[in-house]
């Protein structure tokens, strides 16, 4: 009796097992397994606050040395990780089979990446960043210097520890809570490739900053990077929803800067704790899809007054359109509330583009008149919002002209024609009788 019960239990367990190990799915977009590549295992200790924040949020971190020959992100065509954190700025070559192409393939298949560089950034890290649309300063000795918004310090006088507070304006990327304290940054700057429209500055340098070697005089040439063109931390959201964060500073993840107090030069506000922890934690929540993931369901349309979806519309019909959009909150799907979801009625170009109104519970709806042009149209929802995954929905629907019997009848203007015809017919009938039988 007990044995079959046990076997049954085991069978149940086995059937549950794939559910447990499967991670990044359409229904649960948050990452689970993350590979962390380090230059040195001592980073585990010196950056432990960052790692413990990830662990406490349920991530399964796998630490490896960047030159560990056993590194593999893929086995039997399946990726073993959902995210990759490269805290190995000086690594020239990864161990194992991983290389730049491997990392890019990883991202191309929808996985997430965090890259941190510093003043010793290797070509490998620079190449990975360049592929993501981020160009680090080519001068290997250059770091970001800012004489106007540095962090006041009694021991560091070269103004390379920067107190940056020019954040990206997006609640979904950096969380609802405003980051009050400036973020401490010490490292190299990068610029965004203007040809890449996916990459965004998450943390920008101030207008007075520039990228140079602080211990040597500037040459007569202006520095290649200066002012707000310098991005300190950039994020990318690829079309496949893979997210990438690139930081020019490894130190900004460290316990030392997480805990450090900060006072920006020229400001009297002194903060007990820098904004680093909040900034990095919130950004990592976004990177690992704890936020900002949308899904759209129940795309519907019908004629006004009907509920069935027709196979075809006639020109000038009045129709109703609705779609439901939900947002991943890290643990469940909650209604997405926004005022800028738009629908297009599209054939080669949009004929109608209308903003949808929402009921606050995820349902977006509108109604409009079908244009007086017939052909094969599409309902299109192209929803791109800063920080959210993009939605691209389309549904094809033909539009036909009036049938011959659907036109207006008994037009007053045509009465003379009708009168002419019928008087002629009546005349003919009378005439035929009179002509034949007149005596």
């Amino acid at each position: 009796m007990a044995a079959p019960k046990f076997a049954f239990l085991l069978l149940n367990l086995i059937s549950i097992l794939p559910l447990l190990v499967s991670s990044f799915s359409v229904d649960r977009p948050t990452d689970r397994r993350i590979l962390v590549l380090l230059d040195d295992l001592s980073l585990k200790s010196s950056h432990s606050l960052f790692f413990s924040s990830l662990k406490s949020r349920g991530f399964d971190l796998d630490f490896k040395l960047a030159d560990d020959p056993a590194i593999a992100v893929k086995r039997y065509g399946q990726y073993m990780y959902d995210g990759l954190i490269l805290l190995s700025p000086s690594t020239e070559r990864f161990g194992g089979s991983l290389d730049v192409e491997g990392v890019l393939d990883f991202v191309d298949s929808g996985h997430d990446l965090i890259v941190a560089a510093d003043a010793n950034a290797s070509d490998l890290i620079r190449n990975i960043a360049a592929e993501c649309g981020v160009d680090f300063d080519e001068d290997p000795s250059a770091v970001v210097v800012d004489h106007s918004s540095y962090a006041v310090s009694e021991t560091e006088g070269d103004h390379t520890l920067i107190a940056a507070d020019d954040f990206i304006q997006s609640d979904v990327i950096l969380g609802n809570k405003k980051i009050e304290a400036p973020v401490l940054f010490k490292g190299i700057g990068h610029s965004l490739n203007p040809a890449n429209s996916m990459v965004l500055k998450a943390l920008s340098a101030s207008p007075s900053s520039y990228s140079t070697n602080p211990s040597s005089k500037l040459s007569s040439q202006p520095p290649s990077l200066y002012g707000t063109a310098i991005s300190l931390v950039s994020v990318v959201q690829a079309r496949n929803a893979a997210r990438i964060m690139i930081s020019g500073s490894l130190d900004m993840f460290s316990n030392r800067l997480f805990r450090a107090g900060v006072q920006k030069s020229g400001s009297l506000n002194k903060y007990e704790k820098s904004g680093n922890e909040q900034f990095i934690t919130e950004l990592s929540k976004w990177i690992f899809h704890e936020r900002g993931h949308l899904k759209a369901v129940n795309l519907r349309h019908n004629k006004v007054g009907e509920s069935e979806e027709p196979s075809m519309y006639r020109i000038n019909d009045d129709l109703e359109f609705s779609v439901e959009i939900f947002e991943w909150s890290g643990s469940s799907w909650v209604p997405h509330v926004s005022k800028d979801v738009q629908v297009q009625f599209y054939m080669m170009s949009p004929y109608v583009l209308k903003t949808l109104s929402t009921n606050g519970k995820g349902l977006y709806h509108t109604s409009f008149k079908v244009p007086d042009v017939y052909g094969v149209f599409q309902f299109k929802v192209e929803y791109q919002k800063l920080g959210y995954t993009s939605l691209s929905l389309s549904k094809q629907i033909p539009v036909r002209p009036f049938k011959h019997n659907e036109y207006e009848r008994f037009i007053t203007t045509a009465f003379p024609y009708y009168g002419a015809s019928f008087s002629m017919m009546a005349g003919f009938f009378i005439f035929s009788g009179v002509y034949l039988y007149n005596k």
Partner: protein
Amino acid sequence: MARYLRLLLLAVLVLAASCESAVFSPVSESHRSAALELFSLADGSYGRTALVQYSIACLLCIFPDTDHYSTLLAKTIPLNICGLTLLAISLCCTISSLEETYEALKTFKVLGIEKKHDITTSSCASVAHTLKSTSSASKDYFQALRVNSILKCDLNSEAFRGTESKLKGSLNGANSLIDFYYSIGGLVLLKEQTPEVDVHLGDADRIFRSIKALGQSDGRWRLNSNNPESSNNAAGIALEALAGVISLATPQIDNSLITTLKNDLLKLFDGIERYDDGTYYFDEKHVGALGHQSPISASASVVRGITAVAAVTSENLNLPGDKILGLAKFFLGVGIPGSAQDLYHQIDALSCLENIRQVESTPLILSLPATVISVTKKDQLKVRVSTVLGSPARTLSVRLMQIFVSGSKDASVIDQKLKFNAVSGMHVLETLPKNIDVGSYVFSFEIIFDNPEHKKAYVTGGRTRVLVDITGVIKIGNAEIVILDGDHGSIETQKKLTLPGGNDVALSANHLQKLRLSFDLTTPSGNAFNPHQAFLKLRHESEVDHIFLDFLGLVEKFFYLSGRYDIQLTVGDSDMENSFLQPLGYVELDLPDAPEKAARPPPQPVDPYSRYGPKPEIAHIFRDPEKRPAKELSLVFLGLVLIPFFGFLAGLVQLRANLKNFPKATVPSTFALLFHLGIAAVLALYALFWLKDQSQLCLTHFPCTCILLLTFLFGPIYHTEGTRLIGNVLDVCWAQDTISSCIHFVQVKIYVKGPILILRVSGTGSCLKRAQFAIWFYRVRV
């Protein structure tokens, strides 16, 4: 590995300073807060076990005698189960938790944190349980005794005695270094903790030699004889074990053995690694039974071993002072470790280094609370000299020996004694030397002992070089912006500027003119100052930036964009307290048209916010309805159109038209009537077709009626033209799709039956019968 660590440490810790002039601060308040945080985190597991242990403690309180306890347990079954579960949990937890407890307690003790009270009870219960248990391994005894050495639990000598015999038993059976370490360590701790138990080793020489046999020629040790890999971590463990053997040995151990040990120690120091900033550490390449050991744990292990050896020998070990100081700097340079274990290793090693019992070996750390000194605020240069754990050193003075200009070898030799401020415990340089202006300097300090005897007690590492930034407010004067005529250099426009301050100049210039911006910078002591950053930025309306460093050779590459340029000036330096960035106004530039081959402005990055967000709405513009004349006009025309008809009728009346010739006979009159009815029917059909709404009038009525009428009038169509007609009717029906509203053709059959070709259409619908009826007539003769 070592290379990476070096890079990392250099980057993280000493990036600001040049390698020779790194500043290491002694253990500070932040270590204490980190310790409280980290160990309370570690207490997550340790707090849980404490709870379990607490319940055991309660059980033990109820049954203080263990034998009695077990007999009672045997009798009370529920309690038995509960007790056994608790025992099992406590056994698996105590092993790790006692070690963690010790690490926490030791760190707290060294840092002077009084946090013991809340865990004393539970930990003591755990210690007592481990010592009384017969199944514990020597490691458990060792950990329990270690915890007890700090907590000083109230334990009876019975427990100690039992532990001693067990430890000795395991010592006799020991063959690996770890076994020796735990057994000997346990015995040493026993000896310290209880005078009642007489702990001594009779065969100390044998044990000493068997541990020594695991040593390598380079001073490192192997963990056991089967493992060929040697490590520094094992060396530290071995040194501690050997020190234990020496202290326990009765009679005293052979002096020659101690001498070899001393040599081993020195050899171990030969293998030490060095960073460029003067720190030393023991690297660990070996990854073995103990898992990966970081340099911190390996160095800490060696330091513990050296301290233990130094404590038990009366001989001078001749430890290299600079390396001891380098080790101390290494541990301080780590900063605040993020893991509890690393923090324990760091703090424990530092306390070992501070308390090392060798006369000339206590490292002293010279540190500066602030290395950024403002001459404007009249900051004083303060130097603190303390031991690694931050306790003040004995009477000494600090002399400023030399000052180097950063980046050059030129040094000004100054021999100035710093004044000691007893209240703050700092040595203060009250006034900076006269020749020091703003800039970066390397100050070289030396520690001088008032009492030459003390010189032997400490290692100071000679001169300490510290990078100091002297900052100040830079005076800006004679600022002006001038437009010069190209050839003659004559001044066309001249505007004074207040820097820093609000400026709003409006200039205009063409490509033949020159723009000159000039200002003087003077340091507080009146010297000219050359800032690191002096940018003039001209920003075109289209947000194309231009940046100039050289103010005299200007305006070449504007991409031929004429228009308004905003001028922005940035002046900054790390030693300039009033670095500024401010707009100066604008200049209206009139530039020639771009030649064809001129470079285009580079693409500007798109504004991320404009890419997102809603697009402008699009509404379809519908066709206007056709223009129609007024209703009245149509009706008037209707009247006009009907006039001829009424005229015709009037004419007939006028002509006295009649129907008197209508046939009277039955047959002709019937045919005449039928003929006229036929015409009337056709006309009526037209009228009906016009009048009836087609959605109700199934169009099949029309062809059906037509065909009916045609057959009625002309008889069946036997010609091929007739079939074409039907085909056309069907085509029209299909094309207009009106038939389908009432008929769905399922099948169209054409077949030959005798001489007749039959076209048969079948389907469903309201009009089907009529349609079939109509089509049945079309039998075409072949």
